[in-house]
């Protein structure tokens, strides 16, 4: 799908390394975890960018680094034309109104001692947007919008099921009428029948509020369903970035290929009929990633050049980037 509007978020060469220190008196850096290692991506207004990858590939750290919830080591994040990296907390505060986050665990991301009304209303109050009766009215409207009842206003989070709690998290994120919502595995903790409810809700409010999503998940079926574009991450780097349908129909990078073929298809005949590429081994440690292409240790097509030379993220087809020496489907 083509871009829907102007770039809302532009991430360039974003790096986040976590130092590993040792030493009794003086801390010495002995190694670093390269959680995010030079990521560039663009998100347009009204668009959904899906981010997939296995656990430990740096998806969540990337989200946090984009929202400046953790200070990036280097690189640039431009949101609506303004640079975020290096800004003070006070400066960032007014920007944060436009960027909100939905978290994975609906049990851990809501304060158990606060009532729903407070949880959803606090952002409005903190940013001085509403108070008193007006605040209550707006919160109740939001609750209604996400499919909760107005009488839930005075309840506590423990009185709700997982799906309902995720609705509360969505209401909280919507309260400030943001432009960008970063959703970090918003449906992974939910049962399938409830997952569909939440995905449908996220799609509805996207149109209604004109939102852009950065949607992180490890479930490729879900990501494909919601995304316009998809970026695939492996060991801190983007290895492929393309339109959603094209990524599934004609993946270029062998890792994307392997990910797609690893997903079991809930249709026994199709499942048996297709060719599978089952990867051997595990993801290497981001402390000491393999030289050259990070994926060469598990790649069935790897050659000598892959062990030495790191492939650049190049356009192999229009608007279809991949970082591979031996691209497939081109």
């Amino acid at each position: 799908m083509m871009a829907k509007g102007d770039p809302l978020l532009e991430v360039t060469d974003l790096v986040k390394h976590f130092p590993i220190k040792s030493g009794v008196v003086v801390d010495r850096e002995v190694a670093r975890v390269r959680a995010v290692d030079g990521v560039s991506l663009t998100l347009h207004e009204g668009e959904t960018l899906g981010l997939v990858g296995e656990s430990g590939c740096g998806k969540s750290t990337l989200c946090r680094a984009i929202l400046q919830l953790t200070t990036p080591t280097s690189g640039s994040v431009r949101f609506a034309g303004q640079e975020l990296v290096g800004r003070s907390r006070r400066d960032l505060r007014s920007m944060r109104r436009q960027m909100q986050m939905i978290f994975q665990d609906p049990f851990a991301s809501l304060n158990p001692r606060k009532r729903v009304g407070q949880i959803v209303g606090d952002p409005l109050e903190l940013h001085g947007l509403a108070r008193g009766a007006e605040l209550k009215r707006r919160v109740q409207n939001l609750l209604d919008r996400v499919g909760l009842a107005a009488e839930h206003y005075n309840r506590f989070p423990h009185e709700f099921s997982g799906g309902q709690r995720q609705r509360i998290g969505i209401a909280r994120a919507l309260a400030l009428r943001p432009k960008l919502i970063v959703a970090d595995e918003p449906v992974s903790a939910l049962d399938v029948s409830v997952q569909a409810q939440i995905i449908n809700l996220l799609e509805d409010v996207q149109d209604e509020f004109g939102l852009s999503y950065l949607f992180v998940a490890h479930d490729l079926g879900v990501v494909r369903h919601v995304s316009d574009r998809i970026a695939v991450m492996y060991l801190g780097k983007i290895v492929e970035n393309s339109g959603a349908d094209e990524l599934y129909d004609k993946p270029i990078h062998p890792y994307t290929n392997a990910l797609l073929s690893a997903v079991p298809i809930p249709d026994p005949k199709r499942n048996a009929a297709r060719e599978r590429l089952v990867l051997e081994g595990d993801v290497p440690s981001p402390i000491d990633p393999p030289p050259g292409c990070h994926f060469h240790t598990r790649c069935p097509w790897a050659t000598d050049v892959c062990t030495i030379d790191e492939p650049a993220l190049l356009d192999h087809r229009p608007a279809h980037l991949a970082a591979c020496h031996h691209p497939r489907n081109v």
Partner: protein
Amino acid sequence: MSGVILKVDDLRVSFATEDGVVQAVDGVSFELTAGEILAIVGESGCGKSVTAQTLTGLTRATNARITGSVNYRDRELNGLSDHQLCDVRGEQISMVFQDPMCALNPVYRVGDQIAEMIRAHRDVSKRKAQARAVELLRSVGIPNPDRRARHYPHEFSGGMRQRVMIAMALALEPDVLIADEPTTALDVTIQAQILQLIDRLNRERGLAVILITHDLGVVAEVADRVLVMYAGQVVEDATLDEIFYAPKHPYTWGLLGSLARLDQPRTARLVQIPGAPPSLLAPPSGCRFAPRCSHVFEECTVLPPLESRTGGMHLDRCWLDADEKAHHGGLRTRGA
């Protein structure tokens, strides 16, 4: 039938709590044939794990009440003491859990843990048991098993730990392996490896597997028969193809429809099942799925649904008439 090795009949498990009695498993019956992979699917809280644990006598909370029968090769297991179960657990029926880090002892080397299990059941020397452990690790696809047997659980990745668990479960060559969400904590590429392993063990050793999962994709990949559970009850029991291509119960239709799938064009909206599973403290009278069912009519809310069998083995519990069941269902019902 001759090939049936495990027969569960009207199994009921309830827990007395401060708030009342939770009927976690409510009249579950099924049969497991030798060499078969039976999948039990359902959402969290539907009683699939409690069912699995009860089979091997692992539901041992003091407030639990278990009735019904678990019959393994003409031997009744329900009601046996831990001591009496000793020659069944591990020997004949063994179990693999969701989180392999919690199931392995962190302060013992994995080789020793497997060897200890062998020596608890067999009269063999330490050295022999160790050698057997290494051989088992090799058979589940762990590279350098000699060296890896001397490692501690934390030195293994999630997928490798699950392989260690499976190796341990296979140590005494059981007939039945119960795998409770064995791949839920793993990434898809690792999940594919573990499913391949389970499939291989099933084919090569004729190991019967009860696979507990919530993922219909996993079911489609390895299962022969499928049991769909909802709110403590079996709502449908059929072969793999019947469940996917001719399902009879509206809950199964909903489950199949609500998946965001890779192999189909992106539809505008997912079919959603409204609401959430009921509390098992006070389950709805009549059919338990009725409050969420879009085909509900009067009988459903009053009378418990009739068990009906069609074509011999395909069982479902729903009041809809056969024509209507045949009309809906299957992988065609999308995009409503």
